[in-house]
């Protein structure tokens, strides 16, 4: 009996030690923050400007993503299985397009031979402008948001919504009083994924909006021009703006699903 207990103890601790090793491997790249690269250079690194551009324009892009993506997610989530499959296929295209390819396609589709001529009549340019930046971020993140929101809506039992409607609530009241409160963490996870996807996008943005330089482009140019000491401040700001929101949203969602189980 004692031997059997010892064997269970060793197996359990061995598994935990293995998991710990795996965790260290996953987090190991963060050790790079402590590697000496010389005195960090804050002046002239453009950190604040890049952060301002990235955060403000990504926030604007997210507003558009939420306003357009949420009704779409509601529509797809409540459509027939066949129609739903079609829409998911469309959304997956936007998710699976390689960023560089997406950037080139956006610059062509919104360029002089595409929608660009029409937009320029109204004074909008889609080359190296905030508009180009926001449009690109919209395209790189919308698929993630809508697909994530559909998953969030799938977690809301349809009979609850029908019951709420039978109790006299209009469709919008049902959404705000039943659907949204139950799905809100799922929506938050979807939004945080879209946020981090847009904020960290480099490949597509570098093609369509090299200027105004957001954090990823600024990191690249600083690395090229000044080396690592000028990159580190940008890197810290980049991590602080990109990581906490999705990290917290995922943890909260996980905690809630664990509590329900």
């Amino acid at each position, binding site marked *: 009996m004692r031997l059997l207990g010892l064997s269970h103890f060793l197996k359990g601790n061995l598994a935990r030690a293995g998991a710990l090793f795996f965790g260290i491997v996953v987090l190991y790249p963060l050790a790079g923050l402590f590697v000496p690269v010389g005195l960090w250079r804050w002046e002239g690194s453009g950190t604040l400007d890049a952060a301002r551009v990235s955060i403000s324009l990504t926030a604007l892009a997210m507003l558009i993503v939420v306003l357009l993506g949420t009704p779409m997610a509601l529509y797809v989530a409540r459509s027939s299985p066949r129609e739903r499959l079609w829409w998911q296929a469309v959304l997956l295209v936007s998710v699976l397009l390689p960023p560089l390819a997406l950037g080139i396609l956006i610059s062509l589709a919104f360029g002089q031979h595409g929608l660009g001529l029409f937009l320029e009549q109204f004074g909008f340019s889609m080359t190296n402008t905030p508009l180009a930046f926001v449009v690109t971020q919209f395209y790189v993140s919308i698929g993630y948001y809508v697909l994530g929101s559909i998953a969030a809506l799938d977690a809301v039992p349809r009979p609850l919504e029908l019951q709420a*409607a*039978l109790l006299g*609530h209009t469709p919008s009241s*049902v959404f705000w009083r039943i659907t949204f409160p139950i799905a809100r963490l799922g929506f938050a996870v979807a939004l945080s994924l879209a946020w981090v996807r847009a904020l960290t996008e480099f490949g597509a943005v570098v093609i369509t909006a090299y200027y105004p330089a957001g954090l990823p482009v600024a990191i690249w140019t600083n690395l090229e021009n000044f080396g690592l000491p000028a990159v580190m401040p940008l890197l810290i700001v980049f991590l602080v703006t990109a990581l906490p929101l999705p990290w917290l949203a995922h943890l909260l969602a996980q905690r809630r699903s664990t509590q329900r189980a």
Partner: protein
Amino acid sequence: MLDAHVVKQRAHFRIDCRVTIDSGESCGLFGASGSGKSTTLACIAGTEIADDGYVRLGGETLFPPQRPLHERSIGYLTQDANIFPHLRVSENVRFGLTNGARSESDAWIAQLRERLQLVSIWNQPAHAISGGQARRVALARMLARKPALVLLDEPFTGLDRHLVRELLSTLVSWQRELRFTMLVVDHEAEILERLCDRAIVLEEGQVVQDARWEALHADPATPLLAQLLAPL
């Protein structure tokens, strides 16, 4: 008055059921499991859409065309309680009341709370209560609005026998007092007999008999019905 004709194709048979109930009367929908009772009820409620037929309530046509659910004065208690897990019990019960009706309904809500034994759980989160409590909350929530038509789908599943006995008499007295029209689905004749004088019997979607209980017991239309009515 409820006047409905529900036609709906199921996997192995076609439901073709006509239901007529005078205002303030109650009627049972009786039959073996899988005979199409719950689907018929869902089509009358509007949560499922019939392939053909019609649903009229108090002179208003609810189908066709399908009238939006929020415009129907129907209380529908399904087999699952479907209470809203993110709200408290009290918020669940008051969910169907408009702001104007809330203060007027206070006495009625207090009565529901007492008679359905919700006092001890009144302020608890709905996700923390038991299955039996959830069914009582759902019953209170449905009756809080005083709907013109009450549809009950196996309303006492999962409740203790002594509570069922009490709820049956409470429900009958409320039905007489409030004069709502009531259609109840159950596969237990004993429960339906306590709630309704009359029953429509379904077998594979077809109405095989529509009569008062005495007539059903005296002369069941089919061997299956005779078996369902026979004591254990």
